[in-house]
């Protein structure tokens, strides 16, 4: 039972992480190849604070705050670049983060930080807590989609030049997407640190950024339900099939490539098209 509880917690954390990227890449159309850095910022801050004896529930908002603040700064620097260049910029941020962590002894350097405790919850309690967080973030995403912010994000994702002509302050909205998305990644990072009780530089590198991007793309860029299902399934795969864990970048990288090449709108798109076809057939009869 312990194993299932732990797996469930891992899945909820992956869902949270994927939803946070979906907000930036799916809703607002801003690609990021360095999203794991913000997971890392949240995780490292939570770990340091936990070591210093700061209560669990206080570390979560602080992790959000720091990751969101750094995310806003990164967002500011990337306002002038689009598409491919944004991908490269964010990738650079990801490498920069890992590079800094590796060099800093007080952050554990190569060895990382072990023995992170302090949630004072049972395994089951912690699982329920992370699942609750995931549900709340899902609700937030669904709300955001339906708000005017979500509609503006949609427009920016499709054609930001036209949004400018409609009087929309596009940079501010992009910053908002970066701020919210990276803050949620920070929250996820804190939950990650308390769950695994160990973090190291390898947990937040390029592989993780690609993994989470593949979750978003497989689920269907922008679709809250699709991304949730995809993140839950894909995060469980390495536990079910050993070789996926060994060849993570290969598997998720190929998946990402194949989806973008053949099913650019992801599982959500497949389902939509399937339903649409069935409805059309029924109408035909």
């Amino acid at each position, binding site marked *: 039972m312990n194993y299932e509880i732990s797996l469930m917690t891992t899945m909820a954390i992956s869902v949270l992480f994927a939803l946070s990227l979906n907000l930036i890449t799916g809703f607002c159309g801003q690609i990021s190849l360095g999203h794991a850095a913000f997971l890392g910022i949240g995780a490292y801050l939570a770990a340091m604070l936990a070591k210093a004896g700061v209560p669990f529930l206080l570390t979560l908002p602080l992790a959000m705050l720091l990751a969101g603040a750094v995310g806003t700064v990164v967002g500011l620097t990337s306002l002038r670049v689009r598409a491919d260049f944004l991908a490269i910029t964010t990738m650079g941020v990801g490498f920069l983060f890992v590079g800094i962590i590796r060099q800093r002894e007080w952050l554990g350097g190569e060895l990382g930080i072990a023995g992170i405790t302090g949630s004072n919850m049972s395994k089951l309690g912690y699982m329920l807590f992370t699942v609750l967080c995931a549900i709340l973030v899902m609700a937030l995403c669904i*709300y*955001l989609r*339906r*708000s005017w*912010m979500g*509609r*503006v994000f949609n427009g920016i994702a*499709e054609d930001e030049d036209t949004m400018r*002509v409609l*009087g929309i302050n596009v940079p501010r909205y992009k910053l908002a997407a970066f701020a919210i998305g990276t803050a949620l990644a920070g929250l996820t990072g804190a939950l990650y640190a308390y769950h695994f009780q160990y973090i190291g530089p390898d947990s937040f590198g390029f592989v993780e950024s690609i993994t989470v991007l593949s979750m978003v793309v497989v689920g269907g860029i922008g679709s809250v339900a699709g991304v949730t299902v995809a993140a839950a399934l894909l995060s469980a795969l390495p536990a079910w099939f050993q070789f996926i864990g060994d060849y993570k970048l290969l598997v998720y990288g190929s998946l990402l490539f194949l989806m973008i090449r053949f099913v650019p709108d992801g599982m959500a798109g497949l389902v939509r098209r399937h339903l649409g076809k069935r409805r059309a057939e029924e109408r035909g009869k």
Partner: protein
Amino acid sequence: MSAMASSLSTGPLLEVDRVTVRFGGVLAIDDVSFTVLRGDLLGLIGPNGAGKTTMLRAITGVVQQERGSVRLSGRPLDGMSIERRIRLGMALSQQLVKPFRDISVADNVALAAAYRKTLSPLRALLSLSQSAERRVAGELLERVGIARHAEDNPAVMPLGVLKRLEVARALALQPQLLLLDEPLAGLNSQEAESLATTISDINAQGVTIVLIEHNLREVLRICKNLVVLDNGRKIAEGDPKTVMHLETVRAAYLGSGAGDERRNRQHRGSDDA
């Protein structure tokens, strides 16, 4: 809106003051000045490559002028972002229609009509209701004559509908100054006439309009004033009848002696005739 604004201030709504725009070595706009009074329907005309669209882009801030100044209600716009200029009371209907294809025709207009709610991301995040915007969208679609396509997807709509959608979306911003870049292009003569009449009605209801258009028949029918550009320079301005009788205008724009624009186009198309 515009009626209120005109009672607040009596100066010209838009002043283009000695504006020069250069793309690399090419002088696209050369020292052009003109003013647009409140309530005007000003036609900005000239042959292809005269700099009309560039002029509009300098007004909206898509391109930056090298020299000169653009003022709206006396306020200099130079260096301002596009979105700030729009927020100050301009709206642009672009030559190439760019509807959002994921949302319905009505939602396209509603998105523009929500400009108060979308002023800041926070306000947008806290605003859910779209009934007011949908109502505005319905009225505007009615006004431009495509209310029956409100729930259709723009991706499958013909150009005639999209051109009207573009105008409705610009109107949803409740502009004092509406900039229209070839709204009639690509429409057949019947569609063009009916959209031109709509534009004239919009002007009559108090919106000041600058219209770029090649369809001279409709321009001469609805415009109150003309500014004629040729090779980036202003060669004439004034009321349409006087302007069109000027020898310089006829020579630059219509070709020597040609009275009918369509014939003139065919003439130019055949090149050697």
